[in-house]
């Protein structure tokens, strides 16, 4: 039986159907999860998708972080369940303190939608194991508040512990400190990034197929575990 991977829909989530599709194309069973339910429905991994949950009105992710489903997610993440936060999902993970730091308004002040080059800095997570260390990939980036910030000590620790998972290449699109595009928690099971791998799994609609490895990585991880 294919592993079941959940995708949470918050009010204002937009890329939930894309994430579900990417899970399906990778060969896992996609499971839609609803923010207001305090259950993960027995899934083995969870994706928090992109979008503008609660309109990003207070602070990106600040309200979603208190959704009933998040209590379950925080428990599961603590127990080692793979969790991927994409864009707004990354912002929610930071607000929930599953990942350190915060995402602030792009330094260019505008929303940015582009095909972004980045380097895979760590293959030691369940979401990046199918990449080569140092591999250069292109992933769709689209956000208004994607500037990753943290204090110096946190940044040094992330670097020292190999928890910078993705780094922007050929120009920093949003002012992220140290060109950071994505990070993991200490254990490596929780990963957040601003670019959108779910938009890079179909040659007809995406600029590359570099997103596929995110989903096949976790599928392998879950299959090996079973």
């Amino acid at each position: 039986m294919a592993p079941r991977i959940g995708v949470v829909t918050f009010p204002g989530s937009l890329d939930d159907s894309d994430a579900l599709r990417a899970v399906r194309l990778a060969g896992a069973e996609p499971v839609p999860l609803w923010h207001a339910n305090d259950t993960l429905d027995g899934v083995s991994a969870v994706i928090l998708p992109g979008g503008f949950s609660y309109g990003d009105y207070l602070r990106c992710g600040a309200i979603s972080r208190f959704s009933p489903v998040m209590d379950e997610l925080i428990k599961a993440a603590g127990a080692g369940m793979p969790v991927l936060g994409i864009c707004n999902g990354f912002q929610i993970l930071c607000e929930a303190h599953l990942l350190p730091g915060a995402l602030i308004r792009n330094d260019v002040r505008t929303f940015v939608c582009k095909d972004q080059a980045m380097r895979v800095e760590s293959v030691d997570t369940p979401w990046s194991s199918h990449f080569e260390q140092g591999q250069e990939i292109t992933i769709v980036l689209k956000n208004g508040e994607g500037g990753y910030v943290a204090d110096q000590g946190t940044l040094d620790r992330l670097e020292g512990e190999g928890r910078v998972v993705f780094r922007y290449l050929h120009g920093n699109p949003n002012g992220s400190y140290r060109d950071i595009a994505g990070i993991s928690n200490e254990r490596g099971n929780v990963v957040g990034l601003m670019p959108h791998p779910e938009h890079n799994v179909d040659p007809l609609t995406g600029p590359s197929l570099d997103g596929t490895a995110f989903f096949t990585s976790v599928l392998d991880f879950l299959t090996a575990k079973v």
Partner: protein
Amino acid sequence: MADTVDNALKTPDLGQPWAELGLKPDEYERIREILGRRPTSSELAMYSVMWSEHCSYKSSKVHLRKFSELSQETPIGKLLAGIGENAGVIDVGQGYAVTFKIESHNHPSYVEPYQGAATGVGGIVRDILAMGARPIGVMDPLRFGPLDAPDTARVLPGVVAGVGGYGNCLGLPNIGGEVVFDKTYLGNPLVNALCVGVLRHEDLHLAHATGAGNKVILYGAATGGDGIGGVSVLASETFDADGPAKRPSVQVGDPFMEKLLIECTLEIFQAGIVSGIQDLGGAGLSCATSELASAGDGGMHVDLDLVPLRDSTLSPEEILMSESQERMMAVVEPHNVDAFMKICEKWDVLATVVGEVTDGDRLLIDWHGETVVDVPPRTVAHEGPVYNRPYARPDWQDRVQSDTPESLARPSSGAELAQTVLAMVASPNLCDKSWVTNQYDRYVRGNSVLAQPEDAGMLRIDEETQLGVALATDCNGRFAYLDPYAGAQLALAEAYRNVAVSGARPVAISDCLNFGSPEDPSVMWQFTEAIRGLVDGCKALGTPVTGGNVSFYNQTAETAILPTPVVGVLGVIDDVTKRTPIGFATEGDEVWLLGDTRDELAGSAWAEVAHDHLGGLPPTVDLDHEQRLATTMITGAAAGLWSSAHDLADGGLTQALVESSLRRDVGVTVTLPEGVDPFVYLFSESAGRVLVSLPAGSAAQLQELAAAGQVTATRIGVVGSAGPDAVLTVEDQFSLALSEIRDAWQAPIPAALGV
């Protein structure tokens, strides 16, 4: 104290502010005749907004009727809904239907660029939603004053941020549109918005209120004081050159609420628990209540005290006129109300029963227990004034048409041609627009097969069967100025061609007719000519007009905008994997030009860039040829013949070569045919032409196809190498590094905005 019907009867001679509300003396008299008394102030408010130019189409109605007289058959079947509904609906096969429409939000976007543009997107999306369709994409044709004008630095970034801010937050891919600069748009920028939606045939919903006892539910955002009188005060009057800012009339958007409204409404449709549904846009509650009641078979009773308010001090008149965004009205059978409320609750959407459908034929509205509105709804919604405005060909038209570009100095040497290429690509209308389009999400929903800067936007609607739709919007206002009849047809032909070039079959159009003041007979003539051009054009192409929008009064004092009939064409493609992109792909591919090039430079980008000249007659239109060319493109695409294809329009062959090269940084070497004038061949804007590339060895197949369609096909070159050293070469004339062209092409917008 509210002005009740009783009070109106008691005080028949009370002076009323009808003029301030935009009504003319005879219109006010007619309201009194209809009611047999003076209107209450609430009734006056309703009539004034509903009889405004924006809502009633009073100056355009007699001309727009010609659209409904067109055949309602598309090349692939009958329209499921046509003009008069919120949006037209087309059967695209496999049980799917598609609905699309284009609208203007011009005046608010000048007053308050961000909110004006944002709520323009919101409004058209709700129109599509009200048909029962899931909105799947948007496009925005935008027009601004000169790029270097100080006010453009205010309007352009605000409009772009508004379009992006709203559309991105809704999760709708923005897949195309236009960005055009001209001095006539300086005080009157055009912000047009198109939305496309998809539904199953059985999910089609039309807006009407039937069944006495059925509940009228207002849901979505609460009603506030924003946008009061937007349609009458803003959209239906010319801006005074030095009048006060009209900011209070602009609405404020909440895209998050709209996203909830979309998901909530689609779930309500799924559950099959609504009898009628209507969005609240221009004229707010006045429009929704009167239109729903007017289209149904009974009357309606509404209690305004039940309307949730953001501002408890609002008067009944203000509540009726408010254009607060993100509101919808549904008619629901009583036994379904609980289920309706439950879905709204799931999505955190406020829903309130505010009234019910009645047996009578009156629209009755109460406030604090007394009747403040008692009107026949048809007289508000559908039987507004109709004007036969005088129109006359302006006396300057001959002078403009005889001022041909023949006398303008033309570049002749290779070096001069190369300089002209660089000057053209660095001009505002031909330069790179990615500063704009990179602020729009084109990827969300994962079905964007083609998006700007491609010729057409293309969306997959079924992942299993690969069925899809393509859309393009176009208009060259300079051509329309020289000859509005031909200009409208050229807009139609270009959008039609752009869709066909992508591989889709054009099936229907929607239009957004942007003009100056209808009270000026010259403008009215431009308008009638453009309609005549579109009607004749649609007849020739077999594409019905499914709906659209008229925007008049795009005029500041005596300066009217260029007549700008924007045409949106929808096409259908059975297999989106066969789509044709614009970019050259493979070194060694043959490059061919389809169509004929004539010495047609009047109104061209070259005449503007090199000489700031606008005179003469626009390029000739041959719609029969356009159809044959389209068939050639579609057949070739289905057969997998094209590596790339790009429509020739502004800037002619040169611009097409540049854009096809820059798309993937692939060079090209062109050999001009024997005996042609290099300048004319490179810069003429003759219609009906497409630049294609195809694998070496496929020429015979192309020639056979072109011969069958009686389309001229000329081999003009070969695709060159890719990478940093790629060049664009015209043999015996010049050679330019793509990097040099790119630098010139990318610079203008960021430089002008200082970003």
